[in-house]
């Protein structure tokens, strides 16, 4: 009898112990996000961390790629600012040579992680209702910003510029985490509309009081990105307005010339930073960092150098502080610049030396100088030439130039138009920050790539289909409605 009672007791006990409703220990569900203390903040942080983490794709780790690195390389390497000194098996080679293919690893990674940011932002937005508290709304606003930013980055890489026609295929707009797998690309026009509407929503939700620092999106970051988006859309009044909002904000100021290098090395403490992708010491990617391709200083590949035409342009004014970002590697005689495959080794230090660590850097997403340049370009397009030149002279003066070195209506410093002068200054200031190619092509200008390097020697037409990347093959395999770029 005792044993019978015992066995019944065991049965009852274990029945209760083995409940089938087990909550996971390693994460939080979307449904619980709102209830767990600070979970929305951490989940929002997650979307930022996606920009610097090295993620596996389909179970395979890629110890090169991060969102920040791939975005940088895919935007900057096809330009005329930098030159690659030899072939490499790294898919960055396809970015340099523009010999793209649909299964290209860096573009597949970029596409996947950008949409991972979108998916994270979507799930965050779906998990919390608007209007619960100002701080919760602020975080919601950050998520709208992040979704817009990722969509915008995809537009820059995979769709033709807005100015080439709003009916061209844009990107797949993922606005719900429950979207069906098969979804077609929106037009370029629809895509940009979504980006600016998300950014305007973000700016409205975020308050200045709840800003979390330059490592996170803010009301001003939304304005800044709006100024860029409207500039690309050639809605110049709005571009000017949002740029001015940022410029007038007391939070930011251009750093003086003597702090110029440091403002790139230590972006977190720079007064000029609007939004950065923060890399802490744990996130030091070593040879996989952006800076590693540009610089060998004990560590680093150091295979990509400042291009000859850019060096010549900068060389016109040796006192220009922007020359200091370029560090020639001298041979032991101290005079001759060393070469690699015949290409002189002019290292670039814009993406290095955070806290003195060679390969550590937190790249800018947005910084104040771009706002002056955005506004200048918009003014130029509206025919307000003097206002345009005033803005670019602010940038030029900060770089240590004065007097005849400044732009005036009578001295455009070699440019043939005010817009040309703005673009020239934009090139100098925003070099190695991924702007150059897009700035030319959206303004329907060709790019001359006839300079020493492994890239094809050619003048690239603004209409070339290879100015953008192929939609990744994996998307076409699995999304029947997706269409390929020409």
């Amino acid at each position, binding site marked *: 009898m005792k044993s019978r009672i015992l066995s019944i007791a065991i049965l009852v006990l274990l029945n209760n112990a*083995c409940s089938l409703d087990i909550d996971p220990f*390693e994460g939080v569900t979307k449904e619980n996000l709102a209830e767990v203390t600070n979970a929305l903040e951490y989940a929002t*942080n997650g979307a*930022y*961390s996606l920009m610097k983490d090295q993620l596996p794709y389909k179970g395979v780790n890629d110890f090169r790629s991060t969102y920040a690195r791939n975005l940088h390389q895919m935007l900057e390497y096809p330009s005329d600012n930098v030159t690659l000194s030899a072939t490499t098996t790294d898919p960055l080679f396809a970015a340099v040579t523009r010999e793209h293919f649909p299964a290209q690893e860096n573009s597949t990674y970029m596409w996947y992680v950008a949409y991972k940011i979108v998916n994270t932002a979507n799930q965050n937005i779906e998990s919390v209702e608007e209007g619960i508290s100002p701080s919760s709304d602020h975080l919601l606003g950050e998520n709208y910003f992040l979704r817009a930013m990722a969509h915008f980055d995809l537009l820059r890489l995979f769709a033709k510029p807005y100015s080439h026609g709003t009916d061209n295929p844009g990107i797949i707009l993922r606005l719900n985490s429950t979207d069906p797998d098969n979804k077609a690309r929106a037009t370029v026009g629809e895509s940009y509309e979504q980006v600016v509407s998300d950014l305007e929503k973000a700016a409205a939700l975020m308050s200045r009081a709840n800003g979390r620092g330059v490592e996170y999106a803010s009301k001003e970051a939304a304005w800044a990105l709006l100024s860029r988006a409207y500039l690309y859309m050639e809605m110049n009044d709005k571009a000017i307005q949002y740029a001015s909002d940022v410029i007038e904000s007391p939070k930011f100021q251009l750093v003086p010339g003597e702090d110029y290098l440091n403002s790139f090395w230590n972006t977190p403490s720079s007064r000029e930073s609007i939004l950065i992708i923060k890399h802490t010491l744990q996130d030091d990617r070593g040879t996989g960092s952006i800076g590693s391709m540009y610089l060998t200083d004990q560590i680093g590949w150091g295979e990509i150098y400042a291009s000859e035409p850019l060096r010549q342009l900068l060389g016109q004014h040796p006192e220009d502080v922007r020359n200091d970002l370029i560090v020639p590697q001298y041979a032991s005689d101290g005079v001759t610049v060393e070469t690699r495959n015949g290409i002189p080794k002019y290292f670039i230090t814009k993406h290095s030396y955070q806290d003195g660590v060679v390969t550590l850097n937190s790249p800018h997403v947005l910084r104040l100088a771009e706002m002056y340049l955005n506004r200048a370009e918009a003014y130029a397009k509206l025919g307000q030439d003097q206002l345009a030149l005033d803005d670019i002279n602010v940038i030029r003066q900060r770089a240590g130039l004065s007097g005849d070195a400044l732009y005036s209506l009578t001295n455009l410093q070699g440019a043939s138009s005010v817009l040309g002068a703005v673009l020239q200054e934009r090139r100098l200031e925003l070099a190695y920050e991924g702007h150059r190619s897009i700035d030319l092509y959206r303004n329907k200008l060709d790019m001359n790539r006839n300079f020493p390097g492994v890239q094809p020697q050619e003048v690239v037409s603004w209409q070339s289909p290879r100015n953008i990347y192929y939609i990744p093959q994996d998307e076409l395999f699995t999304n029947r409605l997706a269409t390929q770029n020409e």
Partner: protein
Amino acid sequence: MSRFILSLRISTLLFCFCIIALQGYAQQTVKGRVVSLLDKQPLPGVNVIVKGTTTGVVTDFDGKYSLEVPGQDAVLVFSFIGFESEEVPVASRSEINISLSPSVEELNEVIVVGYSAKTKQEITGSVVNLSAEEIKGVTVPNLETMLQGKVAGVQVTSATGAPGAAAEIRIRGNSSINADRGPLVVVDGIIGGSYNPNDVESVTVLKDAGAIALYGSRANAGVIVVTTKKGSTEKTEITVRSTVGTRQITTGNFGLMNAQQLYDTERLMFNSSAVFNGIRPATVLETDTDWLDLAYKTGIVQNHNISATGSSGKVRYYLAGDYYDEEGTLLSTNYQRLNFRSNLDFELSDAVRLTTNFNITRDKNNSYHWRWPYQPFLYLPYDTPYDEEGNIRYVDANTPGFLTRDKNNILHSAQYNDYATRGLTMNGDVVLSVDVTPWFSLQTRNRISYSNYRNDTYEDVRTIEGRSNSGILSFGVTEGVSGITTNLARFYKDFGPHHLNGFIGFEAQQWTSESAGANGYGVVSGIKIPGGVASPQGISGTKVQTSAQSFLSEVSYDYREKYFVSASFRRDGSSVFGANKRWGNFGALSASWLISNENFFSSLGKTVSLLKLRGSYGIVGNDNIPAFQYLALYNFATQYNGGSAGYPETLPNPDLGWEQTKAADLGLDITLFNRLDITVDGFYKDTDRLLSKVQLPPSQGIAEVWRNAGRVVNQGFELGIGGDVVHTQNVSWNVNFNIGTAQNQVKELPEGTIINKVYDGVKQSVRVGEDINSWYLPKWVGVDPENGDPQWEQAVTDSEGNVVEYQVTNQYALASATSSLQLVGTATPDFFGGLNSSLSFKGLTLSVSSAFQYGNLVYHRTREFVDADGANFNFNMMQLADGWSRWQNPGDVATHPKPVFGGNLQSNRPSSRYLEDGSFWRIRNIMLNYNLPGALLSKVKIARANIFISGDNLFTFTKFSGMDPEVGSFGLAGLSDFKYPISKQYLVGLQISF
């Protein structure tokens, strides 16, 4: 008859003589003759022993015996395979003649089939039972390896020769693509558990749905039921068994070049001898290092086991301690295991029995850096690991004169670095059975399992691995705790010729696993503890908990022991799935007809002792996926700007549920002449709702999710034949042969899905209408005799992209374009099986066990590196296998392209060039055993003793050019990559019982 009388007379005479001679010793001699009750024919080979002693003899060819018994109280036990044993008190008799009746014992032999034990005749499913005797042979620390070649339809693969490594086991093919796994293991009636192979009493392999459906959601890959030894009711017996041997790697048909061979081959790669002499000055020939010989040494393997079995009052016990120590062949690797088992059975009352089983295992494994197993195959013979004084030297990229492409010296690293794992597992079982009435009983089976694994890596500052970080240390601890309870109510009732029995039960289970680990840089040489780390780096950890509940039942019925029907039903709930799909129903119906029990069959009874036709149909499941895949889960495992951060890793899928297999089996069991067993089975398994990792559009932000998608069919045929071919007094010869097939075909996949399984460029493609393991590669068409170029097929497509024809190309880029890839064979064998035999003469037994496999294609990936036609200059090369030739002059018809420095048109890239016939026949074990004569032993109070010599993996017959045609399915099934080679073992052993 006259002979009988004659012998009787002689016996009588002898008897009288003995009485006279031996009276003083109170001994007497008994003799007689043993015949079969059925046909009155003499029975040779019958064991006649004096009960309770070790004294005994065997009847001769005429069925006669004669032996001394201690006195009139003695009882003789007559036993013979296939016959009922008889016990006869001697009393004052000097002659005892006896007729033995054919055994129903064998039919009534109880086989543990998991939740219940059934007699052989009752069983309606496809079940194979092996005794401890039948599985012994190879000396390994795991049971799976011992099962190789022993059971039809069971495929066992020892993929690696690393010490302590487990084998992969597959029953009736692979029915799943992404959720594939080995069979469910049930130890002593409870799911899961651990055991030492030396403690195993019997193993039952359950193959068809009729047998496995009771295990429901976890049984799709079959079930292996392990029963450990129990205390005997007879007097205490202590057995000591020791085995010691040596082990040495076997590299099969694979041979590396020596310095001269390599030099001569490399010379062919250059058009200009000046260039060649510049790269390879003749001085390289001054060194000829056999790196394989330096890295892989002879190891010692030893296994010592002591066990005690017996009873005391109402308690029966089996206690065993076991020590296994395997010295790895590779550098500093080794494996040690200590195991203790205590099995106690208490008869609390006539109606209540309690069993407690306890098993504890401690193991230690010194493993290796991933580079170690393969690097010796790549080092150039021109290089030496030693400095000028003959000491092992440090090598890195700056070492002058070290030519091998990989600049390191594993001999150096192995001196200082540790890659260790340690494990502790404990299982405690409590089983309580209560007979409530003669026809109704209750049983509760419970187990708590605990496991703890710890891995420690230490990379010394002096080595190439540790140098750049001033020494590296990392460790991780994983702790697992699980509990399971199974509670059964059984009944057994006869209604005249109708027999009915069955049970209902409830089972609940919970597993919890937690891990934690950390690593750091800056370690003082020899300080191998985490506290000695100067610069801590990462910290990691996980926790997972899952639970399951089941209701189960079975009813078996038979009529006059001729017609048997059994039905089982199980309802499983698992926390792995979402609330929508948490519960699944499984079950089977099976039936058998024991034709040999029919009256009309009795005339054939002498020849065909058993004839049984059986069939089954049932549904089983598979839940082998990580937990919580149905939830959209944020994983907070990352950080941003030093703050907590996480993002969703899955998309919600509340409909994710069981993978389901519907399986049918038709089988026939025949026993001839009471000593030859034949079993034939055909099976068909249809698995749908496959748990598949489905690739999503990357624009969903999630690359892959688990979904129920796809359908695969496995079908096959199995044949097992075994028995005594010869059985006489002195000689017996037993042969066991089995063969099985398991062919699979993908029937459905989600629309538009192509699942590619890729390992570094080598591809298998899962496609509708094809085998799961289909090789999908550029098709190699040989060497161009004109110029020695490699040649493949390139697809020519029409405007719509359809392939219209193939043409020959020497451009790998064209041959490897997606449209040019072709299905060039499968890694699934046509058939596999084993042949085992033992031949005994008096006390001497020679046994051989072997396993074979036929018709599978193995991708010999090692050749991409060492048979690369110059593409991997500065790696050593393999010698050409038999029948291979290298192109040298126009017109040469050769298997290998012209060797070219730097490679010949990517001839070493993945293609069907490296696909080889993986068929083999391997002699797994040869053992010569000698049972010492009982008469001799009884003088030193030893009950039994035997000595043996044994050899493992001595011969392998294969055409495969690699080290080993046996390849696992890690990464890709059928991919032969560099690995820790398996070993040949030579062993001697001794076993003594007293």
